């Protein structure tokens, strides 16, 4: 490998990490990290993963080569529409979210241990509606913006241990960093919040059992991450600035995944994953509290509750990988996860609506290099807010929100 190639790739990836935003699609989670997992619809728990096990089943780290460095990113292109109750449709502004991944893994000599470390975007969401009608039934003609950006990146040291020839266990420690900002009709009736950040820790435990040459099963448990945002600033539509802003009630959920992989023929690998994501405990009512205003005439504190009451999510992922030649593999997958957003509390600011995903991808191997690519299409899903008609408690009553997504994943790995 030419000197300087990988340092360059690392710098590029870290630069991509800078925005920290992603539009994830199993709620706020990515359906898979890395082009291999994504190409199989996210069905990766019982599938050998190598370096990307850092973001998947940590037990799969044991399948890695002697040393491997992987760098990649997903480019997400969300498409959204918002039609307020009694109003007209507004399309989301063009957005592209880079969702980077960088990881290094190696096996420790001839021992049973493998280790790795990586940084990856766990997920997030974001919208950008310009000039949306503000509660058109009450305030005809009034227009303003809606914008949100939530990003969550994790640094993950990971170990895996071959307990027996067939059983492997692994664990990841997640050090997370989250950012959030949003505009809620900031020029008319609402406010703008920016610079909210939070550090958080959590972990994941995984195992994999190779039943025989054809069958393997795996499972993971991920603990939740309480994300206590603070350090933000809030500006009201009337121009009052609050300098101490925090957000409570926002948690990245705990999750249980199980998976099975079946080598149907020497060249064909099939995989099925079933996951439970505990959004109902993680996202209930998110409360923004702002204090320390710059105007003594303004209220000393401001409290803005967002009642969200997300539902738990069951995700089913199926994937297939076929080795066309020794150096070329193709993949396809399908992923379904019920939308965690309840219609009664639907908000165009946080519309995690898509449910059905179709994916395809490939890996081309050249000497010690792997080039992975995957494409995901999340099919359009539409919901209408049918909650409390009182605009004071439910400003988005009657809003119809549609969500779709296209994602391109690419990754380069070097084995040495």
């Amino acid at each position, binding site marked *: 490998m030419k000197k300087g190639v990988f340092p360059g790739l690392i710098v590029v990836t870290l630069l991509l990490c800078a925005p920290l935003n992603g539009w994830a699609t199993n709620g706020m989670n990515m359906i898979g990290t890395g082009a291999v997992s994504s190409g199989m619809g996210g069905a990766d728990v019982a599938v*050998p993963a190598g370096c990307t096990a850092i973001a998947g089943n940590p037990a799969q780290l*044991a*399948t*890695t*080569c*002697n040393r491997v460095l992987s760098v990649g990113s997903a480019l997400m292109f969300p498409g959204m529409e918002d039609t307020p109750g009694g109003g007209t449709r507004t399309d989301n502004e063009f957005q592209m979210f880079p969702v980077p991944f960088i990881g290094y893994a190696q*096996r420790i*000599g*001839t021992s*049973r241990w493998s280790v790795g470390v990586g940084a990856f975007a766990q997920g997030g969401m974001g919208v950008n509606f310009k000039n949306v009608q503000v509660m058109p039934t009450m305030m005809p003609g009034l227009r303003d913006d809606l914008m949100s950006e939530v990003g969550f990146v994790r640094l993950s040291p990971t170990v895996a241990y*071959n307990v*027996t*020839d067939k059983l*492997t266990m692994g664990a990841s420690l997640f050090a997370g960093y989250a950012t959030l900002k949003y505009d809620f009709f900031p020029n008319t009736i609402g406010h703008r919040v920016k610079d909210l950040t939070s550090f958080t820790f959590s972990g994941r435990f995984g195992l994999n059992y190779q039943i025989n040459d054809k069958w393997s099963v795996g499972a993971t448990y991920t603990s939740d991450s309480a994300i206590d945002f603070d350090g933000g600033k809030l500006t009201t539509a009337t121009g009052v600035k609050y300098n101490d802003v925090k957000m409570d009630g926002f948690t990245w959920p705990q999750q249980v995944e199980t998976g099975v992989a079946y080598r149907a023929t*020497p*060249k064909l690998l099939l995989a099925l994953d079933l996951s439970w994501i505990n959004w109902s405990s993680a996202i209930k009512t998110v409360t923004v509290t702002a204090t320390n205003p710059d105007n003594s005439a303004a209220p000393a504190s401001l409290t803005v509750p967002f009642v969200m009451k997300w539902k738990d999510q069951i995700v089913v992922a199926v994937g297939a990988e076929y080795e066309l030649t*020794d*150096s070329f593999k193709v993949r396809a997958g399908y992923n379904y996860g019920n939308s965690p957003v309840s219609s009664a509390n639907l908000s165009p600011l946080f519309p995690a609506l898509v449910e059905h995903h179709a994916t395809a991808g490939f890996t081309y*191997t050249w*000497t010690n290099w792997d080039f992975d690519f995957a494409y995901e299409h999340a099919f359009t899903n539409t919901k209408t807010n049918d909650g409390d008609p009182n605009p004071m408690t439910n400003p988005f009553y009657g809003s119809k929100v549609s969500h779709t997504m296209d994602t391109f994943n690419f990754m380069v790995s070097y*084995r040495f």
Partner: protein
Amino acid sequence: MNDRYSDKSAAKLPRRLRADRTGKCMCFLPACIALVACLCLVCPACLHASDTLNFLDYQTALQKGKTAPRPLLVIFTTPWCYQCTELKRKISQNKDIISTLNERFLLVDVDISQNKKLKDDFRIYFTPTSLFLDSHGKPIMDVKGFIPMNRFRKLLRYVSEGFYKTTEFAAFEKR
């Protein structure tokens, strides 16, 4: 031309005569089966000549190397090593590689969790390690980790055809 002639003539033959020809063919069938069975008994390898790797233990391979000079390929593995399993799986999918290994190499599989001596003798610190030795047991080269099959083919050719005596593998691989 012949096919056309034989088809027509067969159609014109009386039914009894056609039955006789079928009967004669049927007589050959047991004879053919018996012949194949005898071949398999005499040479069981005939059954799997093209799809099974002939592994030897290290000492046997060294002894054989003295009488029929062939390079040795020693693959050092551990039972829990996924990449080792994967390497063997890939090799077993490629009949040309199996054929080359069986015909031009003496193949040895060493589980280093059982055979510590060879592990220490050859200072094996990683699995899989594919170690090529000449027929006298002198190391030619080793390759650590999983080897893609295209590269594996080149390695086999590089060693079996003696290119290693004059050329570095990196240069050979670029040809």
